[in-house]
């Protein structure tokens, strides 16, 4: 069964489960179990599928719908739920926004990572809003070379690089830099560097035409 693109994209964006169900119904998929099976089958073929916890939530919603209607849940849904019960908690998950694939601290299992690193490994609201602002005003600025300070998971800087700007993404904490480098690995115009606010590399600053900061103050 083909999955409507709008439904698949929402599935990938990990929208709230209720919204996903609404979207499925809006596309005529009145039976959630059928939609869930199709989406879970789709996930099996993805290079970076939605995290298991999210797929398990979809499967559980489908099973609940089956219980309410007296139907039998599919083997696929049951298998995903069993997988989720057996899997060890993962600190990280993969999400994609605006075409930027990110490894971020999984909010459901974030308790095991604390301190400064836990801040730099999350995706924060200001980054999302800053990216939207840049997207709407991209032509208003000289975006030839960008320096992002306190880049964290790198969403803003990586979006700039994907839009054609030579971008240096900087942070300070080792584990944040390691994760940032992973996220930037496949983005040609993006480079990652350590940057100490108290002893800044003057070269980075002098080269930048646009300096970006999200949630630094």
């Amino acid at each position, binding site marked *: 069964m083909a999955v409507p693109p709008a439904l698949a994209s929402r599935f990938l*964006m*990990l*929208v*709230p489960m209720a*919204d996903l169900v609404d979207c499925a119904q809006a596309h005529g998929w009145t039976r959630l179990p059928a939609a869930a099976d199709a989406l879970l089958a789709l996930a099996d073929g993805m290079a970076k599928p939605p995290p298991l916890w999210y797929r398990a939530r979809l499967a559980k919603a489908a099973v609940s719908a089956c219980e309410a209607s007296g139907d039998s849940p599919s083997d696929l849904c049951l298998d995903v739920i069993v997988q989720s019960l057996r899997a060890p908690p993962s600190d990280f998950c993969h*999400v994609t*926004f605006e075409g930027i694939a990110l490894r*971020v601290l999984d*909010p*459901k299992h*974030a*308790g095991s990572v604390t301190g400064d690193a836990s*801040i730099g490994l*999350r*995706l*924060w*609201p*200001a*980054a*999302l*809003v*800053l990216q*939207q*602002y*840049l997207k*709407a005003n991209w032509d208003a*600025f*000289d975006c030839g070379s960008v*320096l992002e*300070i*306190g880049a964290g998971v790198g969403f803003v800087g990586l979006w700039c690089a994907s839009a054609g700007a030579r971008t240096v993404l900087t942070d300070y904490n080792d584990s944040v830099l390691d994760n940032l480098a992973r996220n930037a690995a496949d983005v040609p115009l993006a480079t990652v560097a350590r940057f100490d*606010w*108290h002893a*800044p590399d*003057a070269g980075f*600053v*002098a080269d*930048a*035409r*646009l*300096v*970006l*900061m*999200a*949630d*630094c*103050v």
Partner: protein
Amino acid sequence: MCAPTAAALLTPSGAGVGVNSDPGDCAALGALVELALSHGAIVIMASAWRNEATMAQFLAHVDGSRLTKAAAPVSEWPVRCLHMIENVIADNVQIYVIR
């Protein structure tokens, strides 16, 4: 659905604890911004924090007349994502352009 959330870290009103509540860090960042401006760069800053003390440390190093508050865009999907990821509403976020 998410714990701990940004909402748990955000202080709902006035002076609170921000990402960089260290006044020294914020002062260094302010000096850094001034350095970038001196090289002709434009600085765009987004902040969800309302920590007046650290903001004051930052602004002490930045000529306030160079700072413009811009309208923060809130499209449909960031709001949806915010609810998913950190359960924080986007209207906490302000955009500042410094040139």
